[in-house]
């Protein structure tokens, strides 16, 4: 089984709210002193791939589309025991456009070889658009299954379980296929061993300049970012009064009902 896992590097989504600022002009988040991390759903995808490899053997290539700093993401994946890594260098990669991302990834995937399964994360922790997977499948002309939480190989076919609003669906697919992975309790990313972290820095890493992918410039994107802003949130604290617990509960219930009525 030849697996490609696409990994996106994003601004740490876990920074404290007050450290998060945006640049409305450039329509992007200000990096500040925040760290860059691997998108968590991409890590879930990598973990799923690693488990598949542990069970059935195979080859895992990790691919990222980003700036030079995205090398960290790939090194970490190598430390977790991915076999090969490739980075498409693109200074515009941080932009939100999923179609552009899918085109770059598709071209890079073709260049890197042929894959039975291509995995992406369900969505990214920065923009959260969640469309790259589907568009990538479209570009490559293969089927797409979204929100997958588990997959297994059975006589050359893939058995894929995906989450739906009401339960799960199980598919049987003949590769190649693109799937987007969602988080489940079974695909929490493993912690790499330090020995492997150290070794990861000595493994080769293919770098591809985005220009070398000979993509035709896209003017046809359906996706345009018009404006971004941080929602204002207001918190007010009111204390209800009363002489004893019962009175206070009463007052509290009345107040809740009042608020519910006015906001309805």
């Amino acid at each position, binding site marked *: 089984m030849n697996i490609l896992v696409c990994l996106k590097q994003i601004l*740490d989504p*876990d*920074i*404290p*709210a*007050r*450290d998060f600022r945006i640049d409305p002009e450039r329509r992007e988040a200000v990096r*500040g*002193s925040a*760290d860059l*991390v691997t998108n968590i759903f991409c890590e879930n995808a990598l973990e799923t791939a690693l488990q598949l490899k542990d069970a059935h053997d195979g080859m895992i290539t990790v691919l990222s589309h980003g700036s030079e700093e995205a090398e960290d993401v790939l090194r970490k994946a190598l430390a977790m025991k991915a076999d090969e890594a490739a980075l498409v260098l693109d200074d515009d990669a941080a932009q939100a456009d999923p179609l552009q991302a899918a085109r770059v990834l598709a071209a890079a995937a073709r260049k890197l070889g042929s894959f039975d399964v291509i995995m992406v994360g369900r969505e990214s922790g920065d923009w959260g658009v969640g469309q790259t997977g589907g568009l990538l499948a479209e570009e490559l002309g293969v089927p797409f299954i979204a929100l997958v939480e588990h997959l297994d190989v059975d006589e050359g076919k893939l058995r894929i379980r995906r989450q739906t609003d009401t339960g799960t669906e199980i598919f049987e697919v003949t590769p190649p296929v693109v799937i987007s992975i969602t988080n489940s309790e079974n695909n929490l990313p*493993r*912690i*790499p*061993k*330090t*020995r492997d*972290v*150290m*070794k990861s820095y000595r493994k080769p890493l293919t770098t591809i300049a985005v220009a070398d992918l000979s993509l035709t410039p896209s003017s046809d994107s359906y996706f345009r970012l018009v404006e971004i802003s941080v929602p204002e949130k207001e918190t007010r604290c009111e204390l209800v009064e009363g002489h004893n617990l019962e009175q206070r509960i009463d007052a509290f219930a009345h107040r809740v009902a009042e608020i519910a009525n006015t906001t309805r």
Partner: protein
Amino acid sequence: MMPAEATREIFWNVPFPWLMYVLLVPTVVVGGWGLYRRLRLWRTGGPAMRWDRPKERLALVWRHAVGQGRTLRRAYSSGRASSSSSVFHLLITVGFVVLTMATTVVMLDHDFGTRIMRGGFYLFFQSLTVDLFGALVLVGIGIAMIRRWLQKPSRLVFTDEASAILIAIFVVAASGFLVEGWRIAATHDPWGPWSPIGYLIAQGSLAVAEPSTLTTAHAVVWWGHCVVTFAFLAWAPYTKLAHVVTAPLNIFFANLDGHAASLRPMDFEADDDATLGVDDLTKMTWKDLLDLDSCTECGRCTAACPAHTAGKSLSPRDIVLGLRDLMHDGAETLLAAPQDDTDNAPALPILQQTGALSAESLWQCTTCAACMEVCPVYIEQLPKILDVRRYLTMEEAEMPPSMADAMTSLERRGHPYPGTRLSRIDWTDGLDVPVMSELDDPGEVDVLLWVGCATALIERNHSVVRSLAQLLQHAGVSFAILGREERCNGDAARRMGNEFLFETMARKNQALLERYGVEKIVTPCPHCFNTFKNDYPTVGGDYHVEHHSSFLAKLVDDGRIQSTQAAEHNVTFHDPCYLGRYNREFDAPRQLVQISTHGRTPEMEQSRENSFCCGGGGGLSFTEEPAEQRVNRQRASQALATGASVVGTGCPFCMTMLEDGVAAVTGDLPSDDAAAKIPADSMPADSMPATRMPAKRMIVKDIAELLWDATEASPDT
């Protein structure tokens, strides 16, 4: 008629005296082999640099091997001092030293023809002194027997060997007295009364037996005494009594650089295949192995261990003894093992499924160093624990889940608090604290105020650093913070065994500090303080770093801070391990406490170098522990027992651990599961070893808070 000169006939009434010399040969051979056998094993260990500073080393041997400095210190167990332990040891040791001198005198007199065993020397030393010291041995043995067989303190290991040793010493000493007494009786020795014990035996025996009977009995018991003594000497090197030799050796080779030097630096560039950390006895250093053979099984370390005291399975003594057994059981492997460094399966695996050498136990260590502080023979337990942790973390990526989360967070965002909603600068709200990156000339700033993750990201500690910042401003100190740029300096990663992550973080921090030209650092966190002071130099960073206690104390001494409104409450100070035991700073924080209050400042039962850990070191503050095994509750009880209303401290980890502990013990402010388990008016008897304290309110305050409150300029609170 009285002979002209006092002496006695050596070998009087002894048939075949030459036979003694013959028996000496197997005794020396067997005993010598016992020691050589150990030496051979130590020599298989890896390198350790312990030959430097010989003068200091000899001085240490003088103080602690000859003078038994640490043996005589009071031992603690569950916060209570016990002292009988050391007395018996001193009696036996001193007694044996004198007895050995007496034997040497006999040898010099008889075998070397010096004729010194005569006259006043014979009477005062060889008779009177030796007799009395022999009696001390018997008294010492008596105390030891009472302890071992009747009192049975839990810190002892109850082996047949230990009992046999006591019996053997008793038989040797007692038979010596019988031989002496019967000789005095049978020869009507005119100098008899100079040997009071022997003389008593003589008188008593003459009352029930004829001198001729005693003469025969003397010959028999003399040989009995000789054979038992020789057998004992031959056997001793195979038992824990080997410590008579190994203890001084081990003390000579002790770590002279303090507890902070416990962690060996690692070289990640050197050898790709070398196992990271230690999981294999064959990978230990010769000093580690010597340590194992030096253990006297006294149990002081385990009695002092906060984790053990709180009811956990960790036991530094049993780690040492477990490794010692592994060393002797695996002697052949050790002697055969070539010191090759491939990641093959370990030849003598250290980790066990259960017991003292299980991963579970080793993860309970708070790295408080209490064990090393009390060990009378300077055994280094902590490096062994941390070496295995290094292996678990770096080779196996196996650690308690909450520690793994903290580690991942350290890796990703440079602090160990996943999910915190606080930012590094929240505490500065409303204060005008300069931030390095916003200054035109950061090089102009005198002092970097290193806040530390636990101070910046745990809300309770904000008032600590606010107090500190305002004190610095008040005293006119030129300082700045790194603000959002600050990242953990790596202490937590290091103590959790991830040396690689520590080095990565240290390098990043050094680059940042270099960028701002930082030379002097002040920090309210003893862990940060220790890391900058003792760990960074090993990876090439040299700063002048001070804990806020000593820095503030100097400002007070210089008159730049004055306490004008000292409080009335009684304050007891809790020594943070990394400030006190690790860096020997005991006085500065006490000085600050003193000037902040007019009240009493009682000491806890265990304080200064004997301080009892809050339970938060070594990554333990990131874990959830079973409520009944929490170290902080023990410490809180000790604090409450002083009757003080405030516990002073100087560490953000101690702060939260003690607050939780006090809340849980007093039922004052139930926190987390204490709320569910401990009703406010009653404590389950088994959840606290100490008796429940009267529900008295006690608050925990950092010394900076205490001082700021006492300073007139403090309207802040």
